[in-house]
């Protein structure tokens, strides 16, 4: 059994560009990217649903790619460009996905919504989902307890159809 260390771990310096803004932080290395956003940068739009990579509510975009921010230490993405839900609208104008989610009533409680939208943005950038089946499959990493799935797919189809 390894000896448990009770003092604080050696902090690590991490620089992240979040929604265009450079942040440099001194962090407990155990801090996940999700907790950096929510607890250190007050960007609570990204949600903690399961904290174990099974629900997708923590989905964000790193260099345009969607990942689960709960299953990565912030230090591992030192230097990266991060986009969260708060960074999708530009100058107050909603991203087409955000508008589509409203148009199609693609949420109820809204807790999975940030993750759904960021994941869908990643899906569109990947350019692989053309049919409803493919959208459903490639969005399967985002779950919705309220069951808004049919409207979520419709919202994404609307934007995929346009791009």
């Amino acid at each position, binding site marked *: 059994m390894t000896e448990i260390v*009770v003092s604080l771990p050696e902090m690590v310096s991490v620089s992240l560009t979040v929604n265009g803004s450079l942040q440099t932080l001194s962090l407990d290395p155990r801090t996940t990217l999700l*907790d950096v956003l929510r607890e250190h940068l*007050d960007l*609570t739009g990204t949600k903690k*649903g399961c904290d174990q990579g099974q629900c997708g*509510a923590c989905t964000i975009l790193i260099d345009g790619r969607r990942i689960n921010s709960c299953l990565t230490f912030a230090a591992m993405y030192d230097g990266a460009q991060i986009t969260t839900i708060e960074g999708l609208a530009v100058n107050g104008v909603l991203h087409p996905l955000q508008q589509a989610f409203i148009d199609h009533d693609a*949420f109820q409680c809204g807790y999975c*919504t940030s993750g759904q939208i960021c994941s869908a943005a990643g899906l569109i950038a990947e350019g692989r989902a053309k049919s409803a089946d493919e959208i459903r499959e490639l969005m399967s990493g985002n779950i919705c307890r309220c069951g808004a799935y049919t409207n979520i797919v419709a919202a994404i189809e609307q934007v995929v159809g346009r791009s």
Partner: protein
Amino acid sequence: MAPYIGTGTSRIDGVAKVTGAAKYAAEFNAPGLLHGSIVTSTIARGRITGIDTNAAKRVKGVLDVFTHTNRPQMADDDKAYKDDVAPLGSPFRPLYGDKIMFNGQPIALVVAETSEVARFAASLVRIEYEKKPHVTDVYSQREETVPVNPPQTPLRPCSRHQRRAGCRSRRLPRQQYATKPNTTRRSSTTTQWSSMQRR
């Protein structure tokens, strides 16, 4: 009011939810905010015979560890824990005493400056139990059950009229369903004490 009835209207909370601006329980900041991590029972039934919180308390950043032995004063009356539409019976009181009633029962709360420290310290709390046998098969306990609200009239088999109409059932079909625990949205609460609340 009249212009809204019958019209399709987008949810008024829509923009807040799709932009991440809508705030949920664990998303309110406050100066000096602390973090809690709950230690839960690993047996389903029995009693706590010992809790060792020394290692947890030694972790830098931990303020205290609450258990049933050092918790603040709690009310004795059921009414203090339930709302007006609660079902019959006594509601669960976390950290009230040493009795374990279910696997996963909260039995200690670590309070610390960061969530990483709180979670780590919680893993250092050592519990000793007196374990009692438990049963999780509801059907096997049928003889022990007591109806809370017995039906007014006993269930009857189909009348001749119903049978002619095709109703064949004299025994109700039984299906067993199992649902997995949900993973989204862990329970959370943010509490801020103000001087007004101490009465």
